């Protein structure tokens, strides 16, 4: 089950947990289950996040695969100019 690293403001909303385990094989499953299991994360997840999977940053490609040993990190939604 992949471990998901949260940034500080998100961690603060779930009692300081900086990492959570989520049963997810794709990016979509990851985001859905985070919303389900951690409702306090929902406002930020709905505003949007980017997700780094094994060092590569993804925005919203739902079926990006996630392995059990993948490094998964939630990031503030990337902006560009």
């Amino acid at each position: 089950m992949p471990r998901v690293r949260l940034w500080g403001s998100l961690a603060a909303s779930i009692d300081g947990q900086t990492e959570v385990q989520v049963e997810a094989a794709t990016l979509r499953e990851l985001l859905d289950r985070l919303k389900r299991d951690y409702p306090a994360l929902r406002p930020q997840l709905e505003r949007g996040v980017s997700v780094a999977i094994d060092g590569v940053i993804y925005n919203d490609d739902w079926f990006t695969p996630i392995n059990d040993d993948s490094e998964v990190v939630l990031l503030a939604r990337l902006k560009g100019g």
Partner: protein
Amino acid sequence: MALDSKADTGKRHFKVVGTRPLRPDGVDKVTGRARFGADMSAPGMLVGLILRSPHPHARIRVIDTTRARALPGVHAVVTRADFATVDDAALADLLDNCMAGEKALYDGHAVAAVAAASGAVARQALDLIEVDYEPLPFVTDVDEAMKPDAPALHPGRANETVPPGLSANVMARHEFGHGDIEAGLAAADRVLERSYRTGATHQGYIEPHACLASVGPDGKADLWCCTQGHYMVRNTCAAILGMEQGSLRVTASEIGGGFGGKTTVFLEPVALMLSRKAGRPVKMVMSRSEVFRATGPTASTSIDVRIGMTKDGRITAGFAELRYQGGAYPGSPVDMGSMSAFAPYDLEHVKTIGWDVVTNRPKQAAYRAPGAPMAAFAVESAIDELARGFGLDPLEVRLKNAAREGTRASYGPTFPAIGLEATLRAAKDHPHWSAPLGPNQGRGVACGFWFNFGGDTCVSLNITPDGTVTLSEGNPDIGGSRASMSMMAAEELGIPYDKVRTIIADTGSLGQNDVTDGSRVTFAVGLATIEAARAAKREMCKRAAQVWGIEADAVIWENGAVRPAGPNAGKHPPMTLAEIAAIASNTGGPIAGHCEVNAEGAGVSFGTHIADIELDPETGTVRILRYTVFQDAGKAVHPDYVEGQFQGGAVQGIGWALNEEYIYGDDGRLQNAGFLDYRIPVASDLPMIDTVILEIPNPGHPYGVRGVGETPIVPPLAAVANAVSHAAGIRLTHLPISPPRLLAAIREK
């Protein structure tokens, strides 16, 4: 047909990519044939103008348009009452910024608009609109806005991350990092604490915002505009005006600069509403003053930094608290600044806290690597001061602490292969770093980081009957993308560059394309171009196989032609692309390739800059003597354009460091809404900006391409400030380092 993988970039020999052919838009731009936003016209066209608030903060009691509507020649008047309510908060803010609702939130905020037969009539009509304002207390400074008793713009809009008891102008809090800051600082030989400030700067594009809207009686509409993303314009305007996206076709004009500032809408929904009401096409063009007063500058900032360093130059911990005011609406890029501040460094203990603050200023818009340059200014200044304080080479200190493959980034993930160390080593080995300096001269160095991303992208590649190729993409060409796409298509197809013409298609011609931002286009559209070319090649192999009566997998594409391959393929003379194109009609019909993709895997980017300056201690003026940019481009498709991006970013950053700044008076009004008083650097102010392109292939792209457009604006603020501080013998912590500010600092020394 076998396609080369994404992993072969290291050994690939390019024929077209990496060369410097003539730019395809050059002749049009130097002859005046190119059509920019204000060059569009239509039969029966009206002139649209906007009435703007003279108050920085005021409740709008009543807007009486009776006299304006009665003026002969006026065809429509629009206020916020003409627009339906929008539920989505971000979209509602966009609409409110285009046309004020209950309150005018900054000097220059749009409150009404007219469409008239001429500019003179439209101006007269604006004078006849009567707005009853109730002026309110205002705040334009970020630190003032954070005080609990500051005038509040949007009470109750703070999101769930903001602790109770703070100013109502604090909209969000962001925190990133890992480790134990206090433990890290305790291990340092010196802990430096400094506060820094940066002014709000405008993107400074030469072409003002302009558009032409035409709404038909059937509700179908066309819009021509100057933008970085006409699909974004379509989708945003359709949502604001309650239209279906398919009913609005948007065509992007040539663009005279954007730099992030044209990634949103300002005039476009208003022009469409005026056209809808008037039943005539409406053209709107902003004046330069309107561009400054009402379109996005970047955030101004106030940043506190604490960094610990050992006497041999190891950074033991880094902490920054960043406060960005993003104008009158939530959404300053402080989250990006907080994530990127320490990204170039391998730190065991790092933490950033960012505060998103609203003030009575225009809504900020993205500006090249939004949020990162200000954060880099603070962190790179502090590292420089620590390094010099220990008598260490500031470049060596950066090398000692540089993030590398396997480093846990300050914003969370583990870096894959990255190019920061290569840029630092190139800088160290460059003659610039060891060149002698004279009196009153100083040298500064700084690093910068940016994320880059990809996103929704569509490309259609068509083989014409005579064997030339037309390529349609959906991203306005802001930095040479037509040349780059033509080159990548030519490379893939094995044909000359001048046989490919790339155009920017309207929103009706391709699927969704994301905005031209995030340094995404050469990466993402390039990836789609290569895939579209490969699809066309597959089809051409199939056609040749039919002609030769062999299996398609017995045909290969090589050097711009199909050839039989394998033991049972037989002997057939190669067929060129042009020969296959000539018989396309006989072999199944026209040949094309296309690609629709959400391109991910853009790859992060790093750069290192060296600046030499000379200051005049009597006047406080600073002159740039020499400047060199070192950056990883992955693979430079057209090196001229890559160098141009490096140079342009550096120059914009130099302006940010030395001159540019939104100045507000005690009345809350912008004092310098023009290029005479808001001075950007021009060619005569600067030496040639030298560039060194490094190529560490991005494994996420078939040719190894990385975005290059944003990173170059990240280091210059600090590089210049470090150089000035070196020359002056005092630490400059407040940008811009304008002559009066520098002179005052020198006199206080």
